């Protein structure tokens, strides 16, 4: 037996400081595609030929979630090459898929490592794996475990998942953990937009634009379930209007134009253009959630992108008109 084990690597249940540091880098979006582990067979504890085989992606968060959930369980972990992408996203792309699974089973010689013919996959891998195809092509039966690795110890007692274990959730914690990476990705555009608007000469507008964008990437994920409309665009508009309203009022009350109608004009520009930014970013958040359908998103794009073009365009035209009037000396 031991002779066949030359390409079986070993792993443990421990999540060390170095792993936590890697997880932190993942969460802030540092080198997103580089959090990989080597595909192949890993031994956890002291597995024997009748020990269970768990399958996962070669993404550090996926692998670490699995191995840390299997404390005290002697088993093998078969790591597929998903190019450093998590199980569900990779399954959606087919990278965590039937072909890769069948290939990896053959490539690693799993049949010589274990005597049984059963693979336990994470449930979300099913979007890329056809269990009956795997059986036909590799001889292994696929058993779909729970959605979350943390439920595995409970699951393994009966090999039956409860309804709760089979459901994805999108809790406040799940949404909060997405915020840092969204912030990282929006930091540069925000600074650029704010700088340009500041140089153009409007400090309030500069700050308000930054708030509209941060509202879309940071506040929106947190408040998502509590904004009472059915789609992301209108939710974004509502949130955007709420965070921009104080700036519009500030612009109305304290600014250089002597004429009231000019100040009202600028307040209208704020309320048209800036919530549109929030709404657009809110629409873009669909891909980070776990419940939006492709046809639903397509419909939302076709319905609301034109609306966004109109509100943003109208705001822009108003703004240019007001600037022109000021430049031409029409101060009132």
């Amino acid at each position, binding site marked *: 037996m031991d002779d066949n084990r030359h390409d079986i690597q070993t792993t443990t249940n421990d999540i060390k400081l170095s792993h936590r540091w890697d997880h932190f880098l993942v969460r802030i979006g540092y080198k*997103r*595609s580089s959090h990989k582990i080597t595909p192949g067979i890993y031994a956890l504890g002291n597995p024997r030929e009748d020990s269970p085989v768990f399958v996962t992606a070669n993404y550090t968060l996926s692998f670490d979630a699995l191995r840390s959930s299997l404390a005290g369980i002697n088993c093998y972990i078969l790591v597929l090459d998903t*190019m*450093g*992408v998590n199980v*569900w*996203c*990779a*399954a*959606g*792309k087919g*990278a965590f898929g039937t072909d890769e699974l069948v290939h990896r089973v053959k490539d690693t010689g799993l049949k010589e490592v274990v005597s049984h013919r059963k693979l336990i996959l994470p*449930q*979300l891998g*099913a*979007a*890329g*794996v*056809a*269990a*009956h195809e795997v059986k036909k092509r590799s001889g292994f039966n696929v058993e*779909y475990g729970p*959605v979350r690795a943390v439920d595995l110890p409970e699951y393994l007692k009966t090999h039956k*998942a409860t*309804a709760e274990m*089979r*459901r*994805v*959730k*999108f*809790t406040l914690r799940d949404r909060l953990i997405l915020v840092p990476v969204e912030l990282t990705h929006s930091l540069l555009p925000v600074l650029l937009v704010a700088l340009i608007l500041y140089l153009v000469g409007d400090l309030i507008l500069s700050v308000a634009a930054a708030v509209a964008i941060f509202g879309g990437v940071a506040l929106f994920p947190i408040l998502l*379930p509590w904004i009472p409309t*059915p*789609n*992301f665009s209108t939710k974004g508009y509502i949130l955007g209007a709420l965070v921009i309203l104080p700036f519009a009022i500030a612009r109305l009350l304290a600014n250089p134009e002597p004429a009231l109608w000019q100040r009202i004009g600028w307040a209208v520009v704020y309320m048209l253009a800036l919530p549109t930014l929030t709404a657009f970013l809110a*629409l*873009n958040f*669909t*891909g*980070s*959630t*776990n*419940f*939006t*359908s*492709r*046809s*639903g*998103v*397509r*419909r*939302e*794009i076709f319905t609301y*992108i034109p609306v966004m073009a109109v509100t943003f365009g109208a705001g822009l035209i108003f703004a240019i008109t007001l600037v022109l009037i000021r430049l031409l000396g029409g101060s009132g």
Partner: protein
Amino acid sequence: MKSAYLSNTLQYNPELCNGCGMCSTVCPHAVFAQNGRLAQLDRPTKCMECGACQLNCPTGAIMVDSGVGCAAAMMLAALRGKKEPSCSVGSD
């Protein structure tokens, strides 16, 4: 968490169902339930078109136009003139 989302393309033909139960096992939104020997659509509006049920149905009783419901990827694909949206994950 309110998760009904606008529309979906899920279609299920109970006449082809062999009662294996795979669809209700793999669905992360409990769209399918086992009713005696057959699967039944329990919460069809919750479908997010991940495609797991269709892929794992051995008798072809389920059809869904599956894909990832991501506006950013779809708009980027449209701008680049590509048909299939892809996310930035794994490509940078």
